[in-house]
């Protein structure tokens, strides 16, 4: 099986370890991964700010790079959702995009993960993955409970997942919201962190590096020892960040 790996721009630039872990993880499961070298961004930052038209070039470039793949995989729920909703066709033709966790659970249907992570972990449910891609059942919705990323974390040796008070509240990142509504964004981030820190987590993980970048910024400013790690790094068996 050959997939095109889409690494969102800010992950490429600031969090290469999350991207490397995603690549290695897919390779471990026998997937032939191609990483188109001319890729940049899906255009979401512009579009969510009201400037879809300024994101057009990025969108066209994305399709030039990925248009011929059957599967595209990205370690980001948010970018995956944007590509799915705004760039790919909705009539069943052309490539299908999956967020990394759902690719593992739904397409590869992995039953075992050979990794160990003996730490207390808080899982942050990123909104676009949760409510846009349906990676889990949102707490607002009535129905059968499921959570694809958590089902993967539960397969990790020694990993102790904490129970949060508000299991799927937004962290307050929201793209340019983080800057243009700085006050609320920071307050939301602090509140979200408090929920994790109260439970004594060592690591906060998520399927979206953008939420984690925001939370990490707050943690580092407070000189906290709590680490953030992309879920791919934990699933890939990477040790806790030093």
């Amino acid at each position, binding site marked *: 099986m050959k997939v095109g790996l889409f*690494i969102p*721009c800010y*992950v*490429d*630039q*600031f969090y*290469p370890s999350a*991207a490397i872990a995603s*690549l290695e993880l897919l390779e471990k499961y026998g997937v032939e991964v191609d*990483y188109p*070298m*001319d*890729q*940049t*961004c899906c*255009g979401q*930052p*512009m579009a*969510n*700010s*009201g*400037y879809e*038209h*300024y*994101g*057009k*070039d*990025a969108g*066209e*470039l994305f399709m030039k790079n990925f248009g011929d793949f059957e599967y595209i995989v990205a370690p980001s729920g948010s970018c995956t959702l944007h590509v799915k909703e705004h760039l790919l066709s909705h009539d069943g033709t052309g490539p299908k995009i999956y967020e990394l966790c759902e690719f593992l659970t739904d397409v590869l249907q992995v039953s075992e993960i050979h990794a160990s992570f003996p730490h207390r972990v808080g899982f942050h449910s990123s*909104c*676009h993955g*949760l*409510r*846009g891609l349906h990676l889990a059942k*949102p707490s*607002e*919705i*009535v129905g059968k409970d499921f959570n694809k990323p958590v089902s993967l974390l539960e397969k990790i040796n020694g990993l102790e997942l904490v129970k949060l008070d508000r299991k799927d509240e*937004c962290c307050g*990142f*929201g793209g*340019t*919201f*983080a*800057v*243009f*509504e*700085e*006050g*609320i964004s*920071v*307050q*939301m981030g602090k*509140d979200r962190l408090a929920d994790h820190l109260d439970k004594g987590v060592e690591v906060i993980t998520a399927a979206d590096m953008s939420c984690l970048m*925001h939370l*990490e*910024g*707050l943690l*580092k400013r407070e000189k906290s020892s709590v680490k953030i790690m992309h879920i791919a790094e934990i699933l890939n068996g990477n040790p806790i960040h030093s």
Partner: protein
Amino acid sequence: MAENRTHAEAAEEFLKDEERTHWHDDTLWHVRTKRDTAAQKLPEWEVLRENASQIKEYVLSHLDELLIQFENNATANGVTVIWAKNAQEHNDHVYRILQENHVKNLVKSKSILTEECGLNHFLEAKGYDVVDTDLGERIIQFNHQVPSHIVMPAIHLKKKEIGDIFHKHLGTDAGADDPQYLTEAARLHLREKFIQANAAITGVNFGIAETGGFVVCTNEGNADMGTHLADIHIACMGIEKLIPRAADLGVYLRLLARSATGQSITNYNSHFHRPSPGKKMYIILVDNGRTEQLGREDFRNSLKCIRCGACMNTCPIYRRSSGFSYGSTVPGPIGSILSPGIDLKKHSTLPFASTLCGSCSDVCPVKINIHEQLYKWRQVIAKEGNPEPAKKWAMKLAGKVLGNPTLYNIMGKSARTALKLSPNSLIYTRFNAWGKKRDLPEVPKESFKEWYKKNRTND
């Protein structure tokens, strides 16, 4: 009020009191939790939401016919039906009815529509003392405020503050904040007003086209108390409040209170069909921009709203900035998609007061795609509204860089190099909103692309 402030500026003000912010957030989260518990008890919840959405879909696509049907049936029942194109016409009609019937004292139960039309101020300017009889509304009326929430209008006030307001206006003991004591005082005060009233104004939760009847939902029974005692009943109704059949009502009554407060049903769901002998009943059907919103394909289903307020209770931004930060009659997520349709420039920051987390759409009992409409309003505002110049410039530049791989690679590398080499005093300036309270990510020694080139390709 936040008339000329951006949402962010108003929120900044609210956030200064962190303790109060936490209290407000926790209070509304508690209501959201009660809503979840109530919803989870109904296995058919999602089907109910879908039904409610579809019925309203039918209403919106047959609004013209249903309104005429409603008017004809109500008229046949002996109700006077009046049409008002806008807020001014609505207010003028109310005033005329009061004059014609020599009304001196009037009571009013909760109606967001009359807030939208500014009826209280209008009538007060004409010399009327408008007595709001909903407890929360009476509190904010004493306090010279407008509702901060459409279901719980005084949710921004703490018990102690309400005690102080009552001490000042009702003569309760200084410092007393026992809810039962205060409610009793309000009850005695309002009983006096009810007895004296010649006219009662109510809103309408549901107008039933098939019967010409309408339903008013209150938890306090204040609409009933007012209308039963007064000779004149004026019901103010937005034209989108229709449902086709009486049989459809059950769908909405099961959803409304559960979504709003977590109750299984509102305490009083009062059905009005015709005036009692010797009394008069009026329905004022108000457009005030609704037809225009109906004509906007991307935004029309915002008119499905049954005003439960669930989107406010769940919204992490609303909970941390309060209703006043929106500067519009209907605050919160639903207000942020309704208000730009009324005044795009004035409300141009509201669709950005969201992370697009989508929780509002998931709690909405009539399945309005609120967060998708926020996204769509953003596109409209960037083109024809009042966009912030700095944002426009930044997005244009970002679009250029991210649309071109060579430029992206160069810019990425130089940005990382600059971040690595610059002292913090240059990075964390007042122009860097990110860095006021957050650190930037540590700069890695190479991008993934650079790593990939070295480790996975033969170049």
